[in-house]
C-alpha cells in the first residue's frame, strides 16, 4: 500500500516537474497519469518490471481506493466558491445563465458527435 501510494506520488512529482520545466500547457497530474499508464503497459511486456507496487494488483488497489470517493476531493474547492460568491454580485444571473446554457450545448455537441462518428464507423465496418 505504502509503495503503491509512493509510486502514484512519484508519477505526479515527475509530471509536475516536467510540466513546470518545459512550460507545457497541461496539468502535471495528467502527465503523471500518462506515466503510470505507460508503466502498467510496460509491465505486461517486460516481466522485469513486475515487482513491488506493480505486482499483485498493488497500485491497482491503491488507485481504486483513491478514486472511490473522487467527489469528496472537490468539496474544499467548492466551499471556496461559496466564499467568493460576491464575485458574481454584479453580473451573477447573466454569468450563471451563460454557464448553464454553454454546458448543455457542450454536453450535447460532444455526446451526439461521439455517437454519430461511432455509428458511421460501424456502418463502414459492416460493408
Amino acid at each position, binding site marked *: 500500500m505504502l509503495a503503491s501510494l509512493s509510486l*502514484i506520488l512519484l*508519477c*505526479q512529482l515527475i509530471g509536475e516537474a516536467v510540466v513546470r520545466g518545459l512550460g507545457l*500547457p*497541461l*496539468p502535471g*497530474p*495528467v502527465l*503523471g*497519469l500518462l*506515466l*503510470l*499508464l505507460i508503466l502498467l*503497459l510496460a509491465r505486461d511486456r517486460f516481466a522485469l518490471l513486475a515487482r513491488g507496487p506493480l505486482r499483485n494488483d498493488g497500485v*491497482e488497489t*491503491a*488507485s*481504486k481506493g*483513491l*478514486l472511490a*470517493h*473522487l*467527489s*469528496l*476531493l*472537490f*468539496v*474544499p*474547492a*467548492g*466551499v*471556496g*466558491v*461559496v*466564499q*467568493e*460568491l460576491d*464575485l*458574481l454580485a454584479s*453580473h451573477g444571473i*447573466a*454569468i*450563471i445563465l*451563460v*454557464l*448553464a446554457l*454553454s*454546458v448543455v*450545448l*457542450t*454536453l450535447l455537441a*460532444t*455526446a*451526439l*458527435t*461521439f*455517437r454519430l*462518428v*461511432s455509428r458511421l*464507423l460501424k456502418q463502414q465496418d459492416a460493408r
Partner: protein
Amino acid sequence: MKDNPFSLWVYLSQSPLLWLTVTLLVYATTDAVSLATRRHPLANPVLHAMWIIGAFLLATGTSYTTYFAGAQFVHFLLGPATVALAVPLYENRRRVVSSIVPMLVALVAGSVTAVVSAALLAEFAGLPRDVVLSLAPKSVTAGVAMGIAESLHADPSLAAVAVILTGIMGAIIVTPLMNRTGVTDFRARGFAAGLAAHGIGTARAFQVDEIAGVFSGIAMSLNALLTSFLVPLVVTLLVR
C-alpha cells in the same frame, strides 16, 4: 477553561482537525443521501456538502483560510487521484483504443463548442471583456483555467468560480439530458461529462458506470490540453 467557555471553541476552530472532520462528516452525510436516492442527479454530494459547509463557516465567522488549513489534506488528493485514473484506463484499454476516432472527433467538436459558446453567449449578454475572458476556459480543471485566465490578464478567481459552477451544473444535468436525447452509449455519455464538466463530471460518471468514468477521465485530460490552445485563439477571433 472555566473562565472562558469559548476558549475551547477558539482553540478547536483554529485547528485543522476540526475542519477536516467537518469536511469528511458533511460529505459522508451528503454521499449517504445521494446513495439512498440511488444517485439522483439533484442529490449531488459535492453540491450539498459545498453549501452546508459554506453556511457553517459563515455562521461561525470562520475564514476560508482557516477552513482550508484542515481541508487541504482532502484537496491535496486531487492530484494523486488524477494519476490514479491511469488504472481504470489501463483495465479498459481495449474499449478505449477501439473508440479512438469517435473520441478525437468528439473532443474537437466539444472543446470548440465549450469555448465558443461561452465566449459568444457572454458577449451577447453584454458582460464586460474581462468577465468574458474569465468564463471562456470554464470547462477545464480549475488549475488550468486559472492559468489561461491569468495569461489573458483576466480574473483567475472568477475563472475558478466559473469552473466549479460549470462542473456542478454539468454533473447535475448530464444524466437527464442524455436520457432525454436517447444517448445510451456510456462511452459517449461519459466522454461528454468529462469534457463539459471536468473532474466533477468525471466523479459523477464513475458513480453511474465504470466505462463512463474511464471515458470521462480521458475527455477531461485531453480537453485541458486542447482548451489551452483554443481559448487564446477564440478570444482573438471573436471577442471585441
